[in-house]
């Protein structure tokens, strides 16, 4: 069987074509496989864990395919990139449908609060937060940005579409943040795991650079 370089976890929620096409574009010599087979996830060198739609549905579909354990296991032992709901599901709990997540990280997934949705001039801010927003990179104790930010300008714009955001208890895992209008966590990083709220696969040059960084990442 051909070696799987990157497995994109498919649990039946949404369109994974964009993610796999973008990975193939930055890594034309790698074997990218969209799969719902736990064996593939166990054998793959790297995992991309995307997600679209509502988090309770995503968790339900993940469980319906018996993928919970293989995703949790992969998140602990190989390069792992979560995208959008794939970030939110890593947490304990979401306000969306009052649902439990996978619980890999302490913290909650919260909805943008209606009362706060206006800019400095009082203009209404829409939900979902949809479009290109600046992402600021967190630095580690050695004042270095994470390897996945290599060759990406601090404050570069990425494409978002979401109504909920993660609020980790442990601020040490925050890998990046954005503002809408208040600051929210838009990336988390811990050991072999990196997860983002925005869509690198839809974020033009900056997004492709991040995917390329992930493909070459040796955590």
């Amino acid at each position, binding site marked *: 069987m051909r070696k799987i370089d990157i497995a994109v976890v498919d649990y039946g929620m949404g*369109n994974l*074509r964009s993610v796999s*096409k973008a990975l193939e574009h930055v890594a034309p010599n790698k074997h990218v496989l969209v799969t719902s087979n736990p064996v593939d996830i166990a054998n793959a060198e790297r995992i991309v864990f995307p997600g*679209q*739609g509502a988090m309770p549905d995503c968790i339900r579909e993940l469980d319906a395919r018996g993928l919970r354990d293989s995703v949790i296991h992969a998140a602990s032992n190989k390069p792992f990139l979560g995208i959008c709901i794939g970030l939110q599901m890593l947490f304990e709990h979401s306000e969306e449908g009052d649902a439990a997540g996978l619980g890999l990280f302490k913290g909650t997934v919260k909805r943008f609060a*209606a009362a706060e949705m206006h800019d400095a001039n009082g203009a209404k801010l829409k939900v979902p937060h949809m*479009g*290109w927003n600046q992402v600021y990179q967190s630095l580690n104790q050695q004042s270095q940005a994470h390897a996945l930010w290599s060759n990406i300008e601090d404050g570069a*714009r990425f494409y978002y579409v979401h109504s909920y955001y993660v609020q980790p208890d442990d601020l040490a895992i925050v890998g990046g943040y954005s503002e809408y209008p208040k600051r929210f966590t838009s990336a988390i990083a811990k050991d072999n795991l990196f997860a983002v709220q925005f869509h690198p696969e839809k974020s033009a040059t900056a997004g492709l650079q991040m995917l390329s960084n992930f493909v070459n990442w040796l955590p």
Partner: protein
Amino acid sequence: MLAKRIIPCLDVTNGRVVKGINFLELRDAGDPVEIAKRYDEQGADELTFLDITASSDNRGLILHIIEEVAAQVFIPLTVGGGVREVEDVRRLLNAGADKVSINTTAVLNPQMVQDAASRFGSQCIVVAIDAKKVDNQSFEWEVFTHGGRKATGLDAVKWAEYMAKLGAGELLVTSMDRDGTKIGFNNPLNRAISNAVDVPIIASGGVGNLQHLVDGVKDGGADAVLAASIFHYGEYTVKQAKEYMQKNGIEVRL
């Protein structure tokens, strides 16, 4: 902060990009894949493809075009035109669309909007509203369907609220009075809808110069502005449009 988006729109029929005036008189503007790549290079924030093919024979063509664009252009792609059932939404998403725009079917069968949103998520469901000013005591703008040929009796602002409630993640508001006229967006219409809903709105119909884009955001309250002819025929590049908006105090991705 979040940037206002510029979205070039490609009306596609029989595999070619075309542009009409007031929904009529089509003029050829080129190959969709080439045009999509050009706009991506110029910094377009998203692309919208409207399949205006009249016969069902050539409907499959749009899927091939989207597949080809999605393999080369890594920004959000919206596809609309002839979307009748949830299965059509699935087909377009599988071809590489990120959002699907629903227009006539939303009026004929609002339940389909709700079904599509609950199956694929609101983030990928756009409801397109074609509105026209009417002499009517109870409301100002009426929703039209079938490419603007059929009146519905629906108040465009109320309709927008209802569609957002059913799960539309975004609204594409086209002023039929302005489409193709190059005299600017219908900003009162856009402002009324933008104020009425929490979801983002895309202003469409009537752009003739770069000031119109600025007015669409400032006066119309649009979260994104859509234009076709000013870009297709090389009058302005997307980059020029963004620079102009930035100079006028609008946050854009440059």
